[in-house]
């Protein structure tokens, strides 16, 4: 049985909020609380879509365009991200450059929307977001480059399709290092602990949450759904390098979904066990991830 062509984007659209739900539930469990139901993120988005909106007095239409454009870039990005065992909806040489470009566009739109409010808080968040993104972008490019070198392919579908148990036998060290940098990128790109705390607002150390502070109603709904989608996309890039084909192609889909669930639990555990880094330490964390990937690449060369 071959999975349908659009499995990757459709599964992401349907399951991404659940991924957030699992993270939150894990955190609640570790903290000894019962926690919100797993479906809470869906309800939140739905509720926000019903609401009206309040906009700052000096804002321009850019503040409204930001969330719309950001969500659209992420949904478009879903088309090139492969799901293990199902492949990508669209695959072409250089699609990973398009993925990075789409992330950049979504971020630029979000940051301008934040600056549009003219508030210092948003300015602060926007500044930090751009700072960390500038370091994360080369990290992502190098990590993908290492995978390209291992598999000899230049599109995401073929790269992830070619990572098998055999590649782990040959290049275990390189793949493991890339895996670690993807984990770091998952936390950085999505503003999770130890880089940022998604559960508190208005602390001066915030990045993403403070950037979207003045958004409400449907706009905030778009943003929250977008956050879930981006978590899912980077998560897939990480889970995809685990050679699930080892368990047989027919089980690959299920195994990958289990892998995503495990990743959500792992993120929940990390968020429960770690404190947020001081802001000055975050760049070292990101550059560390980039360096790990670069080392992985050099391991391949010698």
């Amino acid at each position, binding site marked *: 049985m071959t999975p349908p062509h659009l499995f990757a984007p459709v599964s992401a659209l349907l399951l991404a909020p659940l991924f957030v739900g699992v993270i939150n539930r894990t955190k609640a469990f570790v903290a000894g609380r019962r926690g919100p139901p797993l479906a809470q993120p869906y309800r939140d988005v739905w509720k926000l879509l019903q609401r009206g909106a*309040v906009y700052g007095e000096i804002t321009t239409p850019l503040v409204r365009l930001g969330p719309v454009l950001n969500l659209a870039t992420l949904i478009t990005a879903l088309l090139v991200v492969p799901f293990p065992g199902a492949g990508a909806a669209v695959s072409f040489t250089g699609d990973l*450059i398009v993925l990075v470009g789409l992330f950049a566009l979504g971020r630029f739109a979000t940051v301008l929307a934040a600056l549009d409010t003219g508030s210092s808080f948003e300015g602060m968040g926007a500044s930090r977001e751009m700072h960390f993104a*500038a370091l994360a972008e080369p990290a992502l490019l190098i990590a993908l480059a290492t995978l390209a070198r291992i598999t000899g392919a230049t599109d995401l579908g073929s790269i992830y399709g070619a990572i098998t148990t055999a590649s782990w036998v040959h290049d275990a060290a390189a793949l493991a290092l890339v895996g670690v940098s993807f984990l770091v990128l998952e936390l950085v790109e999505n503003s999770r602990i130890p880089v940022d705390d998604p559960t508190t607002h208005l602390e001066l150390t915030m990045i993403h949450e403070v950037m979207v502070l003045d958004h409400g109603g449907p706009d905030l709904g778009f943003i929250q759904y977008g956050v879930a989608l981006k978590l899912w996309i980077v998560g897939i890039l990480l889970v995809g390098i685990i050679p699930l084909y080892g368990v047989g192609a027919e089980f690959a889909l299920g195994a990958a979904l289990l892998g995503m669930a495990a990743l959500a639990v792992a993120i929940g555990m990390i968020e429960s066990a770690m404190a947020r880094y001081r802001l000055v330490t975050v760049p070292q964390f990101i550059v560390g991830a980039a360096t790990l990937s670069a080392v992985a690449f050099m391991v391949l060369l010698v």
Partner: protein
Amino acid sequence: MPGGGLHVEIDVLSAFFLLPVFGLSALTGLYGRSYLEDGEPGTASSWLHLNLLTAAMALVVVARNGLLFLLAWEIMALAPFFLVIFDDRRESTRHAAWIYLAATHLGTAFLLVMFVLLANLAGTSDFGGYAAVLRANPTLSSVVFLLALIGFGSKAGIVPAHVWLPEAHPAAPSHASALMSGAMIKVGIYALLRMLTLLGTPPPWWGWVLLAAGAASGVLGVLYALAQHDLKRLLAYHSVENIGIILIGIGIGVLGLAYGNPTLVALGFAAGLLHVVNHSIFKGLLFLGAGSVQHAAHTVELEELGGLLKRMPWTGACFLLGSAAIVGLPPLNGFISEFLLIYSGYVALLLPTMAAAAAGLITLVAMGLIGGLAAACFAKAFGIVFLGAPRSSEAEHAQESGQPMLASMVILAVLCVVIGIVGPLVVSALTAVVAAASGLPVTEIAAALNPASGSLAVAIALFTALVVLSALFWAAREWRLARAGVRRAPVWGCGFGRPTARMQYTASSFSQPLVTQFRLLIANREAVLTPDGYFPAAASYASDSGDPFLRLLFAPTFRWFRRLASRLNVIQHGHIHVYVLYVAATLIALLAWASL
């Protein structure tokens, strides 16, 4: 004529570079007509030299004779001096023009050596004659390559010869800056490419030198840009960055030639050449936008601006498109050339030789870092100037510029979008130019570029989906909000009763984390007076991001020269008869030497 005829010729490469020269000249002319006010002193001189600059650039591009080339080059070097010094009552402007003049002649000195050397060995000044000598002598080729890189590189603005750009561009009237940054520095790139076609098959180290120079210019250019709070200085540093990107492309292409890999040749040169045109378009646009801001608010100091998008919607929209394009965001033109360059990086990455793979990795790291930092810089530039609330009364009362100025900007902004949308066609259209620049047959280049333009076609389809999705979400949102209601209210100021516009995040605070992180490279100097005690009195903050290369490399060198030159004072007394004696003695010495 001694040394061959002063002939000219237009081939594909020349024609390609004439596009930005003439296109941008026409648009900046239209813009300048309403930017410069009639009757202002110096207007006539400014127009004369603008036209001279255009003519000289065209002549440089079509010249096929060393003597003619140098002549045109020198006119092209001198005309901008008079453009820069337009506002000559200001000390800083005169200083900027002086630095420009010194820098350009320092570059010309290397070119003079190069052309004299070539003419001597070839017995002619014709480019065709040069090629014959150069192909026979690899050592000479390498020497000429280095002289050309330094000489033409100083015009293009390669680090560390970039120091004149951040001085000259802010001082000149904006339409002149647009022409200089959009077209003139590209003529430096043209000249470098022209020399490369004469030099014969390159050894790998040329490619490495170009790649290293490109990566250094790109990364340092954008880092210095981040630290600026003068909009035009910031744009000038971005020219350094973009010249870096162009050079990385040429470097990859030259490495491809050296390693015998036509795919790398095609992708590298195509990326570099396309970025030449793209940069002319968006940098021209951004300088014209900065001029429009200066015209309206009488300053380009970022900390004095803000909220201009509401007051100048057309300028703002054009500047936003230009910013997105220069950052390389899809689906605009900057993305197309950066896509090709990163694509070539991935191609190099998969090659079996370690050197090629390393070059690919360097390209990726440099492009990733440049892209991220440029995005931060333009989020700052656009966000601080056009969004939020105005930070001064000039900005508060700014008014939109006149139609001729807007027309020039709108045309350039439309070009940014159009080149992005028809990207695959543009890439295919580059085939002949790439073939001319690299010396490889057209069929080979076309075969190498085809997969890339195929990929771009799919990418454009994805971006169409992106636009459709955005429109759908926007419509859905409007429909929802029409029922649920929209209110306007003050932005929450953390419970602070009387927030003022000066409490917004500033350009300096926006870039402070990055500037601090890269402090070893940027050398930003700060003077901070923090509030102190229970009843703090005054507090102040000032930062000065002077160019470290100017301060630590060029200034000491020139001081040393001046000290050396002052030793010659002993033979200068101001007595004319002694000087006549010097002249006579020199003549006799020369005659004696000639008769030996």
